């Protein structure tokens, strides 16, 4: 795995608080046995008008944001279901980071394991960036995971990322499987000490 120290890209806003994983990927798209075809379902009910079947005027549909690879959003992003289909569908649409006021825990963990940083910032900073990219969609937004700072145009603001996630991403060890597997003896010892195993 490669180290993820910065994410640079264009940003798009998905406004709102408590955006749940049913919004991110409706259940109807989860009838699958691999994650390969999940891109289409991302935010489907937000992007498509249920009455007409036509695309809505949501920023995600706007041609000017077509190249966006960073999502800007509100509080408690990714709450609800544990479905990894949610971050997978976002990732498979080319997104590589999310900046929110806060994240739901399972979504956060799923995203980090995928190598998609989720950083938190204040409502004011996100609103300002959001307003700026709405006017200037070509803006390069840069997330520095080591300095924990977002920069765009001539501005910057601090972001937060728990230290374990920061370490995992910047050292390229965000997928823990190899390390987990390397501790076979310790796993067996723990298991043997449990009265029920």
């Amino acid at each position: 795995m490669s180290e993820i120290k910065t994410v640079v890209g264009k940003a798009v806003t998905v406004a709102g608080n408590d955006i749940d994983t049913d919004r991110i990927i409706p259940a109807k798209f989860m009838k699958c046995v691999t994650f390969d075809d999940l891109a289409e379902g991302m935010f489907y009910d937000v992007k498509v008008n249920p009455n007409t079947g036509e695309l809505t005027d949501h920023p995600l549909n706007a041609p000017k944001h077509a190249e966006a690879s960073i999502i800007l959003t509100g509080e408690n992003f990714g709450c609800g279901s544990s479905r990894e289909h949610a971050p997978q569908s976002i990732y498979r649409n080319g997104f590589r980071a999310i900046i929110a006021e806060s994240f739901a825990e399972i979504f956060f963990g799923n995203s980090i394991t995928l190598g998609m940083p989720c950083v938190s910032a204040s409502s004011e900073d996100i609103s300002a960036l959001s307003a700026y990219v709405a006017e200037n969609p070509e803006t390069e937004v840069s997330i520095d995971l080591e300095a924990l700072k977002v920069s765009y145009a001539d501005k910057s603001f601090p972001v937060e990322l728990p230290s374990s996630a920061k370490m995992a991403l910047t050292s390229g060890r965000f997928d823990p499987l190899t390390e987990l597997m390397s501790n076979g003896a310790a796993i067996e010892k723990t298991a043997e000490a449990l009265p029920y195993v």
Partner: protein
Amino acid sequence: MGKTLYEKVWEAHNVGTLSDGRTQLFIGTHLIHEVTSPQAFGMLRDKGIKVKYPERTFATVDHIVPTDDQSSPLSDPLAEKMLQELRKNADEFGITYFDLASGKQGIVHVVGPEQGITQPGMTIACGDSHTATHGAFGAIAFGIGTTQVRDLLATQTIAMAKLKVRKVKVDGKLRPGVYAKDVSLHIMRLLGAKGGIGFAYEYCGSTFDNFTMEERMTICNMAIEGGARCGYVNPDQTTFDFLEGRPYSPKGEAWQERVEYWKSLASDADAVYDDVVEINAADIEPTVTWGVSPDQGISIGELIPDPKNATSTAEKASFEEALEYMKLPAGAPIKGTKIDVAFLGSCTNGRLSDFREAAKYLKGHKVADGIKAIAVPGSQITAIQCKQEGIDKVFEEAGFEWREAGCSMCLAMNPDKLIGDQICASSSNRNFKGRQGSSIGRTVLMSPVMVVAAAVKGELADAREVFDVA
């Protein structure tokens, strides 16, 4: 200094510290279902990895199963494919699987306790956020993503950071017509949908002491709706009585030994908590949601919130968004809101005691004209128990459709879906936009008895008035 159950269980399962600072946590019991596991098995196959402790994983099928016709092959080819895939994975990797033909199939969070697989002091994980349910037994149980399902299959461990513990203490007796579901919706209303992020909730107090296991499960189930990844109740005699004699419970001499062990895990009297919240049971009313997040609840006698009275601009915006979606008038009584569908089921309220209590009041009443009402038992065993008690007949005579076990309209991955902007009185746990299968469908969460009251009246009603509960 004493310890909480959470700390004791965490320490017993702590394999070591990983390089990013997280804990490698041993998971005693792994539950899987058809939606979030196939990709994980695929990843194992790609890497040629075996399942380390196949006997510690249990599978069932719940999300995609139809609840009317379950004959093979299922009419939906995609659903059939998922079913086949789970069968194949269980077979190939040597995992116990409660298939449709087993007589033990059901919603994964109903099956675990029913079989006695869920026990105190275990760590339990499942690729499903409502795994918190199992905390009712004094287990540390939480939902995980599919990549973690892979980690768990491969190593029986996952990487995890320790949570803080908040004590949520509810004391006193619930008033007649008030149920565990109302307690859950009330807690969420107080603490918010994200109030529990970073916490495990320890539910305690005399209200919980007096609760049955089913009631405890209803509340732990919804811990995640309040942002808490897990919730638990300390094990006690109620827990042991529930477990004794179940297929996977310890037997003979081992039983008594295990009970002593379980007792030792309960939080110590002098345990220290990161936060404490106290609630008076008598303050809780039958509660219904009015918005699109489970914390947007009010008592049935209250008025729908008015954005004008919001305490912040963010709150105002979320009220407006919720009311626009729900098509509900600000400031009007919620009671009397017309419904189209009534759904009784799910891992929150699809157990025998839920159907029993609802049937007690439904008997002799009829579902209002034009209302589609469905009752879906949480497991095949629940269905049989209901039949033995004649509960299915009570529902059918009242005009409910009595279905086969599954998740059904809780998330509508099967054919049970809302149509258009239908509004549903539901005993499930999520009122998110589009949750029940229509992207403009509307959900109102409530207790099972409130669901049958709504079905009978054709509108949101106070069950205490409809059924003369005193």
